């Protein structure tokens, strides 16, 4: 395995990604909205006591339906505002945060896999001694490494924003929780892998970056189900659930990426040029 070639290709792809507005806009905007704007907005809204008073009855029903473990977790918080904000920032926004690694990996992989073909630069690459697997691995790393870095940076930023913005209401530093540690360390990298795997599957069936990005956008559907499920009270995230869910996700990633590696052959790629 020629790691020098792999990292040269990764650097090349990242340099091209940095210059592409179509890639950089979603890469910057989505984390900013999910990590800064949403938690900040939620903290400001739930700090408004007059508004919270309108939802007192609904909140009481909601709290009664919570699993015992979560009721115990929010017990130290006295007011409904504190409890509601804690639930929102720790539980409801957790699935949303997974959109960051998913989307990051997905959009960069779209540019790396499909963009290379669209820009007609692939043929020069496949006439080099780089093996099919080295080219494939370079494209996976191009998307996966920045997705992990932004996820990690995003989680630090999220921690800062929620602890600072919610402090006037919650009056203590409460983040990160065990749930989020599992989410960031175990599930988010697997979610990035899912974003990549989706793009690997889609890339062989489309011709342009935009088509690839739009089609593989369906990969956020599981996150939407998690989000709706929590709001509807159908399921609640827990560290144990995340560990099992992450394991399943890693398994799916492994299977899809193995399949992708088998189908990523220069003969097939060149036939589609």
């Amino acid at each position: 395995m020629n790691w020098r070639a792999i990292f040269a290709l990764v650097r090349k792809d990242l340099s091209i990604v940095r210059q592409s507005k179509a890639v950089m806009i979603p890469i910057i905007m989505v984390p900013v909205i999910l990590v800064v704007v949403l938690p900040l907005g939620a903290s400001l809204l739930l700090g408004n006591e007059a508004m919270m008073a309108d939802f007192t009855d609904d909140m009481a029903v909601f709290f009664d339906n919570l699993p015992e473990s979560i009721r115990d977790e929010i017990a130290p918080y006295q007011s409904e505002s504190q409890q509601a904000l804690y639930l929102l920032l720790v539980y409801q926004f957790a699935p949303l945060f997974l959109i960051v690694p998913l989307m990051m990996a997905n959009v960069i992989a779209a540019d790396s896999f499909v963009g290379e073909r669209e820009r007609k630069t692939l043929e020069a690459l496949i006439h080099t001694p780089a093996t099919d697997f080295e080219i494939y691995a370079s494209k996976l790393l191009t998307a996966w490494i920045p997705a992990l870095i932004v996820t990690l940076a995003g989680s630090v930023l999220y921690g800062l924003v929620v602890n600072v913005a919610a402090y006037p209401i919650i009056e203590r530093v409460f983040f990160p929780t065990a749930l989020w540690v599992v989410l960031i360390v175990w599930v988010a990298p697997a979610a990035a892998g899912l974003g990549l795997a989706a793009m690997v599957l889609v890339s062989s069936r489309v011709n342009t970056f935009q088509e690839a990005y739009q089609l593989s956008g369906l990969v956020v559907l599981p996150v939407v189900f998690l989000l709706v499920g929590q709001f509807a009270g159908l399921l609640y995230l827990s560290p144990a659930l995340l560990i099992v869910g992450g394991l399943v996700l890693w398994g799916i990633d492994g299977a899809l990426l193995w399949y992708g590696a088998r189908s990523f052959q220069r003969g097939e790629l060149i036939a589609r040029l």
Partner: protein
Amino acid sequence: MEAVIQTNDLTRHFGDIVAVDALSLEIQRGEIFGLLGHNGAGKTTTVRLMNGVLNPTSGNVRVLGLSPVEQGAELRRRTGVLTETPALYEALSARANLTLFAEIYNLPKADVAQRVESMLAQFNLADRADEKVGGFSKGMKQRLALSRAFLHEPELLFLDEPTSGLDPIAARQVNDSILHASRDERRTVVLATHNLRDAQQMCDRVAVLEHGRLVALGKPAELARELVQARTVLFHVELSQAAQAEATLQDYAESVSTDDAGGALTAQGLVYDRIPDAVHALAIAGIRVYQVSPQEPTLEDVYFTLHQVDTEAS
């Protein structure tokens, strides 16, 4: 002579289409070998098969003693390719493009900068080395792509239309580089081209492909003599007898024309073996003949003759 490329009944299908059809040939070390043919004749597919980028449907090929199917990566370390389109990273500078490929080819780290610099200088790109390739003219892109093919000093070069888009001076420089690589450095060059004049001047041997089939193989001059019977012949005759000479030559040539001054006639489509008969007929008619100059057929004549035969057969 040492065969660098050997193909034996090499065939590649794409669905029902036969892109390369039972191609058998040998290319010797140091040779400049032309692959000629119109678009879709199978030139690019042949290069891809030889460089281990595509696998053959049947038949076999060995290049530099290696099997492109089994030892593709090892083979491609020793070959350089100029693809039909330059396939450059336009968001990167010329230097970054070459450095990337130097690393992919695993050139010694200490040599990369110097080698890149040397290629930029050789192909007259040093002044624009740090500019993004997207802003380059077509000719500059072609020169950069060519320098990339030469970068790792390959033993075997596959060059697809190397002078495409170049002005005459740049084209001459590129052709000189190719000749230098072959004559002085003993590199083997496979030149896929439509430019028959370049092929005639540079190639030691050529193969003409039609619908993936090899329809002619040999040295350009030999092929021309073998395959092109009808020639263009210039006759210089007594000025006052030009009209009579023109009438006499009509029986031997497809067309005859007289120049404005009247003494020089051009007979086109005169079969080589009948030139003595035509001269004899002029002499019998009492025409004073000062000069007879049969024009040597060119590769272009060969190409069009073969293409015409193929079209008629189809």
